[in-house]
């Protein structure tokens, strides 16, 4: 990609939306003022399995301010029982009041709509429901024997999503090993808990539906809503300019969005549904619980001979969803014999979904703890063991990596952390009453990219010019607005302040889901090509215009800096974009261009890598666990905005700390109720939990990966952290904890 020294990309530019956010002026889904707005409150099932025997809405319907109550008795019948849109990640199997079946505790069974939120809330308590209870399966361990292999589907292009995978001969590899580890690791159910609750406002006008949504996938929401109602996609307008965090749960369009649209259609009024925090446990997905059995074999010099990784994770009775914990194992180390398989078991819970680094977050915990156990058994330094098995090419596909700076990450991270001071013997480092330990783990996440289309327009803005760049991407707080502004500014030769980047509207050209850490690579590449095309158009206008000083100069010989055109030759000719446009009154200068991955995805393996080092301190009396230091060194290709990238990595690492020590969604096995469905008992870290976090980006020039040279950074930060912390806690205490979260109680 063309860069110039005066460019904006790479600079720590402030967020372009910062001002709106600090003043409370940024409009999120629930914030839109809509004339005649009414309020929907979802009534949820109170049993985990069975069916609604009777539902009496007479009292609720008569309550003050109530406009109507939607249940499976009176809800409109949707095409294919509401399943016409199933096409993950956006379209999921949803429960949309098409029947009275109950698959989990907390499933939506009615929507009460009233003139005020308070009235709807009050009336929702008056809906009287009786049930016929079915057999309940809410206990993972009890359901374990029922696990079944994942139905095989062809792998998606460029993505290794096969459930069952074998290379070499694992039994032979294990038989030839001098040392073996065979252990089971478990990770809990988790919920994303973005700060912003899910919310939707639906409003019909004739056959057109507008939805103010909070989504990670504007086009996905549009298509899901349209197909569910049997409409043309163009008749659905999704508006989502700000998203208050997503982390995966806003990648799919969940039932409340469609229920708002159904209620709005039924009662002929705009309807807003905002989920309560409690309602965000169940109906909008979460990370599934996993049980991972890992068998490692190695020669006495540390050379891995075989890995077997069997993952069992839960799904719902509504839809199969897989947490692919074993996929990361396939490419992490150079091991000739490997088996990585996945199984599912069904529980009466809401369908789980993608949560920050789905697969990698849980897989790097188990594999990296197993590697720590192996290192100890071999009397090897854990870092030396990883270097011994370093994969120079992708062991999965055999392809070269487009770039891989992991060795440098290990070196730089170890040095900054002071890894050499680690004592190999667990439980031997002390500082007063604190037991101290060091641990490390490898971090990795694949680099994905999807096709994206961007429309870029240059127009007069007073006496200056402005570029308006539009695509239906999303900004979950990740900084899409800002980096796209920077990329556009550089491609056009404008100052960032001369660029207005717009997203979050389905009337804009298509961008992919903001998931899989691919927005920067996908949408960024398209912004680059669209803005480059726009620039060439304007330059051609100048070059072809006899009244321009640039007349006759080949457009490619013209450079632009801060909106001023200069020739690359010695010619003193110059003018500005504004002068060029001023001579073209009424003429739109606009370019719409797409960018998509190409042959490079077949030639290279594309992943970001990193090394995470953790220090754990455990109070010897109360077993209070503190993580005073965490160092992460990462190779992520080109860093587009140092401030944003740093924040994203820190954020991911904090998620890792939280995964290691805090987060667990607890379900009562007796009734399938979510026990800790609030932010008091579902603990996310507060600022005091987080101490020194150091992030280092090692230089990594990747000419193959995509036009902007950047790997995604949204997810890699969480990977490896829980493993590093578990290993540090072991090193401190000698207690090997093989489940998450690690609690004070585990270290008695």
């Amino acid at each position, binding site marked *: 990609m063309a860069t110039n020294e005066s460019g904006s990309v790479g600079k720590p530019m*402030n967020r372009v939306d910062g001002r709106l956010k600090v003043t*409370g002026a940024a409009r999120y889904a629930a914030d839109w003022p809509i004339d005649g707005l009414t309020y929907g409150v979802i009534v949820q099932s109170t049993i985990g399995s069975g069916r609604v025997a009777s539902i009496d809405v007479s009292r609720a319907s008569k309550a003050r301010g109530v406009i109507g109550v939607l249940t499976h008795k009176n809800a409109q019948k949707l095409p294919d029982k509401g399943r016409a849109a199933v096409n993950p990640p956006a379209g999921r199997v949803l429960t949309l009041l098409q029947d009275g079946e109950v698959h989990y505790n907390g499933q939506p069974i009615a929507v009460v709509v009233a003139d005020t939120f308070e009235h709807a809330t009050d009336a929702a308590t008056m809906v009287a429901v009786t049930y016929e209870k079915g057999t309940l399966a809410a206990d993972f361990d009890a359901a374990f024997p029922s696990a079944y292999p994942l139905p095989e589907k062809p792998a998606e292009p460029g993505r290794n999503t096969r459930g069952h995978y074998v290379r070499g001969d694992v039994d032979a590899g294990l038989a030839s090993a001098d040392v073996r580890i065979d252990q089971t690791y478990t990770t809990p159910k988790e919920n994303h808990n973005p700060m912003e609750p899910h919310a939707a406002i639906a409003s019909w006008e004739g056959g057109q539906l507008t939805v103010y949504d909070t989504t990670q996938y504007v086009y996905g929401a549009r298509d899901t809503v349209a197909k569910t109602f049997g409409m043309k996609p163009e008749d659905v307008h999704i508006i989502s300019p700000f998203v208050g*965090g997503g982390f995966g749960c806003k990648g799919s369009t969940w039932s409340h969005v469609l229920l708002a649209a159904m209620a709005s259609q039924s009662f002929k009024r705009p309807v807003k549904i905002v989920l*309560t925090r409690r309602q965000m446990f169940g109906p909008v997905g979460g990370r599934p619980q996993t049980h991972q059995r890992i068998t490692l074999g190695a020669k006495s010099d540390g050379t891995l001979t075989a890995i077997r990784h069997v993952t069992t994770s839960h799904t719902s009775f509504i839809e199969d969803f897989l947490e692919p914990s074993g996929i990361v194992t396939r490419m992490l180390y150079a091991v000739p014999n490997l088996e990585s398989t996945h199984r599912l078991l069904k529980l009466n819970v809401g369908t789980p979904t993608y949560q920050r680094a789905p697969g990698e977050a849980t897989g790097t915990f188990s594999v990296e703890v197993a590697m720590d156990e192996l290192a100890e058994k071999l009397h090897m330094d854990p870092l030396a063991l990883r270097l011994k098995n370093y994969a120079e090419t992708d062991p999965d596909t055999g392809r070269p990596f487009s770039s891989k700076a992991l060795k440098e990450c290990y070196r730089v991270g170890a040095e900054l952390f002071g890894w050499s001071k680690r004592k190999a013997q667990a439980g031997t480092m002390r500082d007063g009453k604190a037991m101290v330990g060091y641990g490390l783990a490898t971090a990795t996440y694949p680099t994905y990219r999807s096709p994206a289309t961007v429309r870029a327009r240059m127009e007069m803005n007073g006496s200056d010019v402005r570029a308006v760049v539009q695509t239906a991407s999303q900004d979950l707080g990740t900084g899409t607005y800002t980096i796209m502004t920077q990329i556009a500014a550089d491609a056009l030769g404008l100052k960032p302040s001369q660029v207005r980047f717009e997203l979050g509207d389905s009337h804009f050209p298509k961008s992919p889901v903001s998931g899989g850490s691919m927005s920067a690579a996908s949408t960024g590449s398209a912004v680059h090509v669209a803005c480059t095309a726009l620039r060439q158009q304007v330059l051609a206008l100048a070059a072809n215009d006899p009244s321009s000083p640039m007349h006759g100069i080949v457009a490619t010989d013209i450079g632009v800096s801060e909106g001023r055109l200069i020739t690359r030759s010695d010619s003193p000719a110059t003018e500005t974009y504004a002068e060029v446009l001023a001579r073209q009154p009424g003429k739109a200068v606009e370019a719409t261009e797409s960018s998509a991955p190409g042959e490079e995805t077949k030639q290279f393996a594309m992943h970001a890598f990193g090394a995470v080092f953790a220090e754990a301190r455990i109070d010897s009396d109360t077993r209070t666990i503190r993580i005073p230091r965490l160092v992460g060194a990462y190779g992520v290709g080109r860093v587009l905005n140092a401030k944003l990238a740093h*924040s994203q990595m820190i954020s991911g690492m*904090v998620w890792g700390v939280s995964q290691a020590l805090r987060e667990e969604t607890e379900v009562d096995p007796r009734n399938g109720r979510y026990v800790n469905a609030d*932010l008091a*008992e579902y603990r996310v870290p507060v600022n*005091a*939990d987080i101490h020194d976090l150091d992030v280092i980006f090692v230089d990594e020039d990747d000419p193959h990966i995509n036009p902007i040279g950047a790997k995604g950074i949204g997810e890699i930060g969480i990977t490896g952290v829980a493993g590093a912390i578990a290993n540090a806690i072991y090193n401190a205490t000698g207690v090997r904890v093989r489940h998450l979260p690690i609690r004070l109680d585990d270290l008695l």
Partner: protein
Amino acid sequence: MRNQALLFINGKEHRVAGAEAFDTLSNYLRYTLGQTGTKIVCEEGDCGACTVLVGRPDSSGKELTYRAVNSCIQIVGQLDGTSVVTVEGLAPPRELNAVQQAMVSCHGAQCGYCTPGFVVAMSALFETRDRLSEQEVRDGLTGNLCRCTGYEPIIKAALAVDGSRMMRARDLYPSAPMLETIGAHCRDSLTIEHGERTLSAPVTMEQAIGIRSERAPVIILQGGTDLGVQANKRGLRPPLLMSLNGIKGLDEVRIDAEMLSVGGTATLAALETAIRLHAGSVFSPAHGHLAELANILGIFGSPQIRNAGTLAGNIANGSPIADTLPFLFVMEARLELTGRSGTRVVPINAFYRGYKQLDLEPDEIITRILVPLPPSGSEETLGLYKVSRRKDLDISSFTAAIRLQTTARTITAASVALGGVGPVVLRMPSVEALLKGQTITQDLFERAGQLARREINPISDVRGSRDFRLQLAENIFRKFYYERLEPRREMREA
């Protein structure tokens, strides 16, 4: 008698009656006024996204003092006579205050949904200060959750703020005219009725007791830090509510040589402030005990919770894991209860009769908490402990207070109280008897721990297992010994 609550919101006068008086402030702001900058995230005071500034008259009565409060667990009626400032009102139109500016330049906002709450909570810290240390920032922002940033950019933003160059709420909204309006309007008691619900705000103690005697059960809504949560989460709508905010002088905190005296409406923040401002020899045992209490208060809930919640509320709520109770138990605190038949004083150790069962008549109100302080020159050691999964903003798994009176190295009296190990906070008479008269040794405290473990019968719940609590009950004595009594004391762990 009035039927309209009066409050100012960003300097504008609002009179609220009927249904809206029972709305949470956050809903009122968002739904009624369309001021959507204030965000609703958890609806139970755990995340701070709904933080607003609430200004109340200071002790001089001439200025409004602003403090950060969670608007999701305050109902509009209980804010009668206050000035509320939201994220939209922190700076003049089209301007940013210094905190907002710093949050922009330090990238303190990512997804932006926690941001208004952080901005307001941080602005509250600069109401009275120009610069803050990192520790002060961290302590001041424990009530605000962020899921994106990892907090670092937010902390940096606060450290970059120079409060002396900032228009504060008290500068933006001159107190005098508002106080004049409030003074004129709020002279009389307030009664707001809506359907079956009534909110009363008497201005004298006699009125308050009258209301509480007339129509039981009248629930006292003071900080709302528990009631507000119950309302949002469990749909609790007590028909009869009473706020004591209108009663002047009931919020007084007094510390003298013999006694800590805390009024019935004094907030935990006011108590914390009074302790920190209290002059006295740093070597006196009273000073040490109060400092120990201040440390525990520092990890009680969050600043927003402490700014609203009261000590009397913590006592009346009666939770076995209430953070202040072990201290009050070992200090032999007394409660002044005022009712129809006058005032009586009850030792706190006799106040709880079972899980949330109190020795409190339906007409009685906790009007004062009296904590006798040890005389200067006496030899005393007090240790207060709170163990929770997360250091700040967390519900305790286990709490403890150990108090010793000693002569040389001999224990002359011992008091031990444990919380989270039974339906009420428990004194441990057998352990106290074991310790009394003995010389301080490590072995003695090992034995005390083992005895405590045998004496209790805790349950397992989401906050900790039975085994963990048993082990903590044992270990806490060892910790106390090492930290407070060991001859060559090591540096205390953070």
